[in-house]
């Protein structure tokens, strides 16, 4: 993770606040289950911190490719 990025994993209170901000209507039991799943996902997303990914070309690489795809 970049030094400037906040951590992906959130404590339950922060997760609840974000769920509310995202407009999700969700009970406490379901929220706790979702929070646990988010912890698993956050750990998986550490793969996105591999060196060089941030500097890599996006998908698709160029306006020309995007234009060709859209023909």
């Amino acid at each position, binding site marked *: 993770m970049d030094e400037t990025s906040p951590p*992906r994993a959130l404590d339950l209170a922060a997760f609840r606040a974000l769920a509310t901000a*995202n407009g999700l*209507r969700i009970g406490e039991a379901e929220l706790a289950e979702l929070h646990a799943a988010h912890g698993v*996902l956050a750990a998986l997303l550490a793969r996105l*911190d591999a060196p060089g990914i941030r500097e890599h070309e*996006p998908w698709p690489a160029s306006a020309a490719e995007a234009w060709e795809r859209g023909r």
Partner: protein
Amino acid sequence: MAGERGRGLGARPVSERFPPTIAQASREIRAGRLSPVALVELCLARIARHDGHLRAFLLVAADEARAAARQAEAEIARGEWRGPLHGIPMAIKDAIDTAGLRTTFGSRVFADRVPAQDAEVVARLRRAGAVILGKLECHEFCLGGPALDAFAPPARNPWNPEVYAGGSSSGAGVAVAAGLCLGAIGTDTGGSVRIPAALNAIAAHKPTYGLASNHGIHPLSQSLDHPGPMAWTTEDCALILAAIMGPDPKDPATLGVAPRGDVASPGAEVKGLRIGVVRNFSDGPDLGTPEVNANLEEVATTLGRMGARISEVVLPDLWDYTVANTTIMSSEAFLNNAPWLRASPEKVSAFTRGRMFLGSFVRAEDYLRAQRLRRRLAAATREAMRDVDAIVCAGMLAPPAPVASMQKFYYLRRPLITAPFNLLGMPALSTCTGFDAQGLPMAAQVAAPPLDDALVLRIGQAWESATPWRDRRPVLPA
């Protein structure tokens, strides 16, 4: 029952007979030895007999199908044969619009939705003369299965009704395997035609991204979504793909170029082809079972005996593809379904709701990093495949679990062996490669660079011609 002893179908009660393949039926129909009306009656009789147990169909359009079959029969009798799908009974995943036929996306949110127009792939099937039998069960919004609290319960695996039938095109996999229809159209965002194909012992082809139109199909993740054919044989998948592919002005992601080779008649010969075996997707800690890896070795050995030049190709870590695919899919899936997830979450099954909600927590920077990882993986995959024409890998990493034991977030615990080919838009076929010790199907995937769909289909067709697995059908309860 009408058509109980239909012309060209023999003397046994038709509900006890598996239908012919599309290619076989088409030859017979064209020659006047098989009636499209009798063929539709065969499928309707089988649906009546077996689908109460299998639950593959959400809607059976019997009257419309009979009318279309009569029309096909009359046209063919007049010499107006439209092609290999003319008079062939097919069915459509319920994520795909069918004019005048209820299309629910597998959700009670859309329980009463009847589209006015066909999806482009359905319109093309109808123009090719196919007879639409009805709509097939799909996991809610193509993501939420197997959910026991869904609008429609999951279709049952005809090889063992207690185990997962795959998804999200589950009804399609079951209906084809059980001989309720001759072919189907499914959709595939992370493996949703190939997984049910693998678990039901049928063939399914995820085409090159953009080869077939997504217009009129409920979007899960636009840059990963692919409609694709599902049928008993690869030969039949090729015939279906040839009918549905091509540019569509209503879907700007469709390609303006034709695939290489002859998709409709790709051939069935692997002699001289360079095929790379991808062992590192399945052979490693927490990846494929020993039986899966042994099966892959058998596939490689057999293809080698058939004349292919076999080598090993080492691709990037399967988790890298899976994480990129899951990140992009989760985020786009939430965006596509946010209105009803926010307004009526109680109408959505718990599995779907949880998985969709999870996508709302994906950060923008992670979504963008996933797209960049996607680019890197494309370059690495292309480089690794530099000396081969196609690759083969396992179809699934493990046998299907009992449906009752499956967890909402199981997909976060194991990488997804079908996902790389969605992520990179590569054509990928799943075909049956045998049966495990429990009698459940096993499968391999064949993949190739974008636009080499005919090559993938050629390898699958060669495999099926040289192996006995297309002769084995599930034993269905009466």
